[in-house]
C-alpha cells in the first residue's frame, strides 16, 4: 500500500500543489503511516518551508534536557541556529 505513493516525487523534486492536494485527499492514512514508520528510501516533505525544515531536521539529542523551562542550547545550536537563523538573517538583512 505504501508503494503507491513512492512515485510522486524524486529527491529534490517538489510536486505541483494540485498533486499534493490529491495525494492528501486520496490517502491521508498512508501519509500518516509513512510519517510514523519512516520507511527507508522515502521521506515525507512539505511545500511549506518551515514545515519542511521540521521534517528534515534530526530529532533532539537523546541527552538533551527535556524540561520545558529550559532552552537547550546544544540542541538549538544544531537545530535552530543552523536552520531558523539563516531564514531570520536573510529576512532582517533585507529590511
Amino acid at each position, binding site marked *: 500500500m505504501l508503494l503507491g505513493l513512492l512515485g510522486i516525487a524524486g529527491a529534490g523534486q517538489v510536486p505541483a500543489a494540485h498533486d499534493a492536494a490529491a495525494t492528501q485527499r486520496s490517502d491521508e492514512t498512508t501519509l500518516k503511516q509513512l510519517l510514523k514508520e519512516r520507511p527507508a528510501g522515502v521521506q515525507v516533505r512539505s511545500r511549506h518551508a518551515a514545515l519542511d525544515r521540521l521534517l528534515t531536521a534530526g530529532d533532539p539529542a537523546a541527552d538533551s534536557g527535556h524540561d520545558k523551562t529550559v532552552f*537547550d542550547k546544544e540542541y538549538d545550536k544544531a537545530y*535552530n541556529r543552523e536552520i531558523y537563523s539563516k531564514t531570520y538573517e536573510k529576512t532582517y538583512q533585507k529590511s
Partner: protein
Amino acid sequence: MVFRFLLVKLAARCNINCSYCYWFRDRSVYDLPKVLAPEVETKLLERLKTHCSRHRLASFCVAFHGGEPLLFGKARMRALCARLAEVERETGTRIRKSITTNGLLLDREWVELLRESGTSVTLSLDGSRAQHDARRVDFRGEGTYERVVAALGLLRTAGIEPGILAVCDPLGRPEELLAAFADRLGIREFDVLVPDATHEDRVPSIRAYFTRLFDLWLDEYSQRGVRIRFLDNLLRASLGRESSTEAIGYGPISTLTMLSDGSLEPLDVLRIAGGAAARSAYNVLEHELQEVQHDPAWREAHQASLNLCATCNACEFHDACGGGYLPSRWSAARRYDNPSVYCEDLKGLFRHVWQRAAPTLYVARQ
C-alpha cells in the same frame, strides 16, 4: 533510564510574585532552605562525579533553577561553576549548564559570570509590557517588564541571546505577544507555555489562543525565521517526530529535580499537585542520584508517563500528545489516571495542525 539532566533548585524563594507560579502553590516549599545548603552542594558534586563516571556519560546537563536562582549569589555561583569544571576534568563528562531566571538581579558582573562559565540563559518574559506586567509583578505589586527588558539588553551586550519563556494568557491576544517579541524586541526563539494546571483547577480553554498563534506563526512569522518551541513540538509530534520537551508527546519523564535541602524528586511542576505527588524519601546527602528511581513517588510519576489512561489509549493522538504534560493529568481522586485537563483543547489543536499541514505534504524518494 540513566539520568542525564538535573534541575538544581539553587533557591527555594523568589524576588517577585507572579500570579500563576507553580512553585509556590505548594506552601511546603517555604520549609526548605532559602538557598542550596553548602553541605548539599558538596555532596551533590561528589554524587555527580560518581554518576558520570559509573555511567560513562559523554555529557550531563545541570539546569540552575528556583524560585529565583540568582538569589544564590555571585560568589557561590562562581565557586559552584569552578567545582563543576573540576567534575568535568576528572570524569571526562562534559557538564552543560543552563539557568532559568526572571532577570531582575542580572547586572554586568552576573552576565560576565554566566558568559565565562558557558551557562545558557533562559529568561522569563510574558510578551508586551501590558501582558507581562499584568501577571509578573514584584512584592509591591509593580510590573517588572522594564527591568527584564534591561536584563535582556545586558545579556545581548555580552553576546548572549537567551531563550525566552512566556506563559500563555488564554484570554490574551497572541498578535500582541508576537509583535512585542519578534517585531519590537527582535526575539527569534521563544516558548509560550501552557499554564500549569491539574484537574483540581478550573482552567480557561487554551484552544482559541494557540490556534490563532499557530496560524499567525505558520502564515507569517515562521517565514521570518521565528521559532516558537511549543508550536515546533506540536508540529513535530503531529508529524511523527520527537518532541524536545516533556510538555508534549509520548515518552517517559526524564527530569530529575534536586531541592535546596538535597531532596531528589521527579518533575518539579508536580508541586502543583501538592507536595505529596512529588516528595520522595531520597536525598543526595544519603543516596546516589540514580537511586531515586526506587522511590514510590518517582516510580508512580515515571510509570504514569508511560502508562496512559483508557481515554488516551483509545485516542487517535495518543503518540503525538502522550497524554499531555504529566502534572496536567493529576486529580486527587484518580491521581494520574486521567487525560490532560486540557484534553479537548489539545485534540482540537492537533486536528487544526494536521488540517493546515497535510495539504502541504508530499512523498519524496531519498
